[in-house]
């Protein structure tokens, strides 16, 4: 069965070692919960997993194949949600969502119903015609989340997805994640707050602090 693995990953940012010798394995239907204090490297790890950042050491494997060998294939099977919401201020909520869903090439026939369902899923139906600029912080975040369900992808990489969400929306997010996992999807979540996940694998980053002195290259 397809597995998503990281082997002795090493991450450097801005000349500093963030973590080293980090390994994990995530089977289909699994959830990996990243925790750790500020600056411990949760966001960095998610960017590594997305292929946006290259590891300074170690490797990421999908089904045994290194993702660096087929980066495009890897990109196509994941959704990454970072700190930025990729919401265009002059496009309406529906237009924003449609662009990203279309780019992912969801089947044209049931496209509209998929989009409507995605909006519904995060209680955005009422706001469909409102331009992105007028959204409140939480509304914008919900729009970013709606992308996850508007086009299918195997792996969800979520960086503090519940930031700014009200209680009802956090519930909706938990439900979306549960649905995704039930269908065999995987999810990696970095968060500081409580988020209801059933039987997550846990990866706590504070215990992984690299050796205090970075090795010298000369």
């Amino acid at each position: 069965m397809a597995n998503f693995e990281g082997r002795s990953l090493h991450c450097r940012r801005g000349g500093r070692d963030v973590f080293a010798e980090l390994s994990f394995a995530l089977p289909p239907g699994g959830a990996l919960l990243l925790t750790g204090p500020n600056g411990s490297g949760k966001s960095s790890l998610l960017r590594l997993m997305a292929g946006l950042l290259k590891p300074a050491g170690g490797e990421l494997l999908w089904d045994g194949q290194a993702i660096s060998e087929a980066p495009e294939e890897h990109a196509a099977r994941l959704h990454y949600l970072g700190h930025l919401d990729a919401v265009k201020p002059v496009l309406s909520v529906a237009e924003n969502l449609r662009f990203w869903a279309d780019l992912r090439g969801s089947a044209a026939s049931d496209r509209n119903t998929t989009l409507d369902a995605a909006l519904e899923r995060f209680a955005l139906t009422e706001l469909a015609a409102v331009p992105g600029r007028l959204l409140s912080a939480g509304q914008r975040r919900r729009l970013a989340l709606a992308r996850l369900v508007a086009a299918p992808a195997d792996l969800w990489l979520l960086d503090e997805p519940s930031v700014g969400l009200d209680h009802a929306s956090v519930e909706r997010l938990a439900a979306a994640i549960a649905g995704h996992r039930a269908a065999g999807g995987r999810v990696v979540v970095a968060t500081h707050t409580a988020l209801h996940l059933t039987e997550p694998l846990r990866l706590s980053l504070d215990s992984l602090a690299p050796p205090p002195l970075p090795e010298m290259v000369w």
Partner: protein
Amino acid sequence: MHRFANPARFTRLADRILPFAAVGTVVALGVGFYLALFVAPGDYQQGESVRIMYVHVPSAWMAMFIYVAIAVASAVALIWRHPLADLAAKASSPVGAGFAFLTLVTGSLWGRPMWGTWWEWDGRLTSMLILFFLYLGHMALLNAFEDSQRGYRAAAILALVGVVNIPIIKFSVDWWSTLHQPASVMRLDGPTIHPSMLWPLLIVAVGFKLYYLTVVLLRIKSELIAARLRALDLATVKAAEVQGQAVQG
């Protein structure tokens, strides 16, 4: 001051003035152009092309007049926060830009037979070109914001800064072109103009003023109606939202 801010009162007043302004425009322009085209004499030097003057000169006057009107409206809007002043400024600038454009086009059509070129970098011409750009800037800024209130206030500040600068610009440009080009081609001394040419000129000028009044009143009215429609629209959305939340909650 806010007495007139009441849209209902304004609309009633506008409805009373509009018919007179509209009829006045048609009559004045009809008479003015008739006199200009058929009654006024051609010029012994310039021939029939002199008739362009009856559009050109009143347009130039209007282009300058309207900018001052916008500045006054902007001051009123900024100091007393009078909403109709914002609308008046917004309604005016496309009209002003139109007259500036008309001045440039008629001037350049006239320049072709007179000077053999479409354009000269003469002081008066050039400052009209700059005025045209000032209008475009005002219009662009007005429409550059999602929130119309922000557009109004930014444009009002711009109009006031602009009106302080216009005399400086005009003066500097005149000085510049006389420095480089002592004898300007375009000199037709105002006072020596014959009454048979002066009258049509003045009548067309009055017609343009009435046209401006008509357009501004109409545009303010339609803005008010559009604002009301938007309010109704938003209210329905909001009501749906509140209802939706009640259902979910």
